[in-house]
């Protein structure tokens, strides 16, 4: 600590106050990035790291049968959560692989029918980068814009579909701004036009009701570690009838997973994914109600205590645990630095390797300065009200102090229009 007292009394971060009851540091509130595994999931997995070690593809002894039985149970658990049948579930290493398998596999399989793919600008990189690679191979990709609230315009989609369109890939819910797309409507349109509909359901499955029948989904990616399950395991739902969807395999080997994904199955991971899906299905209603309450409470506290806060994304079509908020005139990384005992994310350029602010927030038409000021809160199963109170109080405190330091905040308060200033940028 410095002895220099010429700081006019501005002290950004104080950590001398006693912690409130029920709060231990650090606090994890970044549940869109990953989630802590539910102890019940770990319990279910443990035997498969030990005595039950068989290869699920071994057909002629009990070790193999036991493993296969566990895998088939997990397949049922996953299928039940999304309204599918067990035979429609393909196991993968995670959602990035699921997205790659879906998009590349469909593009390859239906190449003779057409070469056009439609997606949107706010997709996860696992979809965007896959589409970019296909563009290099001669496919044509339309990246739909989104509206200011993050929702895709169904009319834009309607106009984008042409006679060469083979696939529409639009995410169920966004990982940064939590906005839920009108999936059932999109799926219906795709079916009317005879186009396969894939959705990246990573953030939605297990958090909100997802039903591949009602939602008219043909192919859906999901992941274990976003739903309190293990990392390194995911699944792809592939519709078997009305219409039957075929996917060209991307990994060759022993012909596992009906030939769509070769490789010895990750039995403990799959058991964990199944258990995570089962728990999510049973507890979704109560959990989402609790998370919406906590989320709205967090939002209300910020709005009450601070001026110039901006909610990013449509709040009516929104994931329960997500809040993406810009604390304008404060830069995101400096904010994170002041709350270093709290794990959240920022859309600030300074937190990324590329020094570019979040492309999702930019797609909403937000100015870079608002994107630089954004924080993503990801509330989850293990967050408590006491934690929400601690996080909001701490954040309000640090934002207020950083605004004392912010020339922009001072200028706005003095009535200066920042857009009229000729900034001497680099």
């Amino acid at each position, binding site marked *: *600590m*410095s002895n*220099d007292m*010429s*700081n*006019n009394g*501005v*002290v*950004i*971060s104080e950590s001398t106050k006693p912690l409130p009851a029920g709060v231990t540091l650090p606090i994890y509130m970044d549940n869109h990035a990953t989630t802590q595994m539910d102890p019940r999931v770990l319990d279910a997995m443990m035997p498969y790291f030990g005595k039950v070690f068989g290869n699920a593809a071994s057909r002629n002894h009990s070790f193999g049968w036991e493993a296969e039985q566990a895998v088939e149970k997990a397949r049922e658990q996953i299928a039940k959560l999304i309204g599918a049948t067990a035979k429609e579930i393909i196991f993968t290493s995670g959602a990035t692989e699921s997205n790659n398998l879906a998009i590349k596999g469909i593009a390859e399989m239906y190449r003779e029918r057409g070469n056009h793919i439609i997606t949107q600008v706010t997709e996860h990189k696992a979809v965007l980068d896959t589409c970019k690679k296909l563009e290099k191979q001669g496919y044509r990709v339309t990246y739909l814009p989104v509206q200011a609230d993050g929702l895709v315009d169904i009319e834009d989609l309607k106009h984008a579909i042409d006679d060469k369109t083979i696939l529409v890939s639009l995410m169920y819910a966004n990982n940064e701004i939590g906005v839920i797309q009108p999936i059932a409507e999109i799926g219906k349109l795709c079916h009317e036009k005879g186009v396969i509909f894939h959705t990246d359901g990573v953030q939605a499955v297990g958090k909100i009701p997802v039903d591949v029948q009602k939602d008219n989904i043909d192919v859906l990616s999901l992941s274990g570690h976003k739903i309190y399950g293990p990392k390194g395991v995911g699944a792809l739902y592939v519709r078997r009838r009305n219409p039957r969807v075929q996917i060209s395999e991307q990994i060759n080997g022993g012909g596992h997973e009906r030939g769509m994904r070769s490789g010895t199955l990750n039995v403990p991971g799959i058991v964990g994914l199944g258990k995570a899906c089962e728990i999510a299905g049973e507890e979704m209603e109560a959990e989402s109600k609790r998370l919406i309450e906590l989320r709205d409470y967090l939002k209300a506290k910020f709005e009450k205590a601070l001026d110039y806060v901006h909610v990013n994304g449509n709040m009516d079509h929104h994931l329960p645990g997500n809040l993406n908020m810009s604390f304008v*005139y*404060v*830069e995101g*990384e*400096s904010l994170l*630095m*002041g709350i270093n005992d709290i794990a959240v994310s920022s859309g*600030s*350029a*300074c937190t990324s390797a590329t*020094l570019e*602010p979040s492309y999702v927030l930019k797609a909403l038409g937000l*100015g*870079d*300065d608002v994107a*630089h000021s954004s924080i993503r809160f990801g509330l989850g199963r293990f967050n408590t009200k006491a934690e929400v109170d601690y996080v909001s109080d701490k954040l309000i405190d640090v934002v207020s102090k950083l605004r*004392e*330091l*912010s*020339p*922009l*905040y*001072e200028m706005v308060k003095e009535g200066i229009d*920042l857009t009229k*200033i*000729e*900034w*001497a*940028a*680099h």
Partner: protein
Amino acid sequence: MAYSDKVIDHYNNPRNVGQMDKASSEVGTGLVGAPECGDVMRLQIRVNPETNVIEDAKFKTFGCGSAIASSSLATEWVKGKTIDEALAISNTDIVKELALPPVKIHCSVLAEDAIRAAIGDWKKKNSVAEPAAVAVAH
């Protein structure tokens, strides 16, 4: 990202935060950076007209921790220096002192620019010949 202890210290206890009367002839104001880039620094100096010594300095910064630390350090360093001595402060000195990683070097450049802009503004007010006009926001 791991910050150096000096960056953390300046961030937690920023020196010389505030503003001075922009209209005063003794005060030079530099405003550099842009909100879109995520960095805006305002650095002000008050210069003794007899001695050309910078007697006081204030800053406010919108930016990351390294930007705040760079400008806070800049105010510490210019205080007590003559105009010419202050102009000799370079961004590499700031990088060294704060142990800034390569991705944060632009923060030190901005702090150097802020010093030069403040001095340029003061020179303009006091009709001191200034060879190269320094961009100052208006």
